């Protein structure tokens, strides 16, 4: 099956849910199970199934999407500028998930 090479990064403490590793080089299936091009929505469920520490999954997703307080940046742009979870992944994309910090 065709795959797309992308880089997924976690910061702001989210890396603790992903083997305490900030950067993950991944080969994501080019299509989701229904045959549509892989988008961010699919990536999030892929991460839930394959990468996140299972019992702490709830700290990453809630009601099927990333939890409140987590920003998603597609190639250093707010995902809201790129179509949110409908953005279709391209080769060499950099997807950064950042947990909002509040300490000061």
């Amino acid at each position: 099956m065709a795959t797309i090479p992308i880089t997924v990064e976690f910061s702001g403490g989210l890396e603790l849910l992903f083997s305490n590793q900030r950067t993950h080089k991944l080969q994501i299936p080019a299509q989701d199970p229904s045959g549509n091009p892989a988008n961010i929505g699919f990536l999030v469920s892929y991460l839930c199934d394959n990468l996140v520490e299972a019992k702490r999954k709830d700290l990453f997703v809630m009601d099927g999407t990333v939890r409140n307080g987590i920003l998603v940046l597609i190639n250093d742009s707010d995902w809201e500028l790129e179509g949110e979870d409908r953005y279709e992944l391209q080769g060499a994309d950099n997807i950064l998930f950042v947990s909002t910090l509040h300490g000061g």
Partner: protein
Amino acid sequence: MSAAELEGENSLLKQRIQQLETELASVQAAAVEPDGQKWALGLDEYRRYGRQMIMPEIGLEGQLRLKRARVLVVGVGGLGCPAAAYLAGAGVGTIGLVDHDVVEASNLHRQILHSTATVGTPKVESALLYLRRLNPHPTYIPHDFALSPSNAIAVFQNYDLVLDCTDHPSLRYLISDAAVLTNIPVVSASALRKDGQLIVLNSPPGHGPCYRCIWPRPPPSPTSCADGGILGPVVGVMGVLQALEAIKLLILPAPSTPAPATMTLFSAWPRLAFRHCRMRARRTGCPGCSPAVERTALADTDYVAFCGADAEGVRLAPEERVAPVEYRSVRESGAPHVLLDVRDPTQFGICHLRGSWSGFPSCVCMCVVPVLTCVDVPFEEFEGASALPALVKEGLSTAEAVYVLCRLGNDSQIVTRMLKDAGVAGGHVWDVRGGIREWARTAPEGFPEY
């Protein structure tokens, strides 16, 4: 004279010194050339600000803009301390400080305006002592109270710019809303452990996105520096960057076409990295800044409820908990029991009760007192688990009684409930109230408190 009278006298004298220093500065500032020409700044100020004034970006005009500017710093902690120091040093004319906390020893590794000598005094007062010594020229305005929906507008309307140096989402939403209503930009920063974030909001006022545009809904369970930890220089870097952004906003004319909002992410570990991310513009229909949305009066908004009052978690009945002093007599009585420490291995490594051994290979095994076994199984192992972790089940299979200890006495209540529900030790399970901190505070022989 009593201590209180001496303190009163001392504070009056400090005020008097400040008054005289200000008078002296203004007399010096009114220096007049022989031919009667008046200088725009005091002679001392030319010397003091010369190194930044000779930069073409600043010049005399920039320095005068700084002097005319009024900046409010909300939160005089890890961010607010360095931010206020650089603003004062740069010659910002009016600096307001809001904080209602007092200085604690645990603040000093990062909150650089406070000192060992000011532990126990209000942070605002402690900061003013430092700032006045650093630069007597600015007017410093202490706001020695908690910012609230009922006082925010009255405070904000006397300033041109606000620095959000707070540590809780409820305050961040309040600051953003109040800044939109009073038409001033917000330089917002935050830090935790080894990461920092910085963003300028409502800039220029009426155009840039507000905090609610970027974060429409608060996170379910924010982590504070007290819980998650913080490296001093990390939060220091972020506070310094806030001062820098503030200075730029104060001296640069407002752009005719606002630049898109940018968030700067800083990570200190393992490699040093800055990252700049392009953020969304104002959100149509944003309840914080959209003119189309009729908003609730600030004073009627419950920010704490909006951000979810701190999670209650499990609350045990009083008889399910023992005070540290009661647990102490259990230890002294020699009654067989297991002490289960649910802090993480790092905290367990900082200090633990004698007789402990740890379930983690990274921790050093200690001697085991015959009647007592202390086990360290971090709360993480319990969190969200449907059944007891195997190590715990096995370790406690023969226990006659179990006492559960964490840092502050919250996680331990949840674990106590789980153990009781699982029928461990025939239900002889108790939570040690107030955690290892309370143990430390009540230990006659002394015990590390962190």
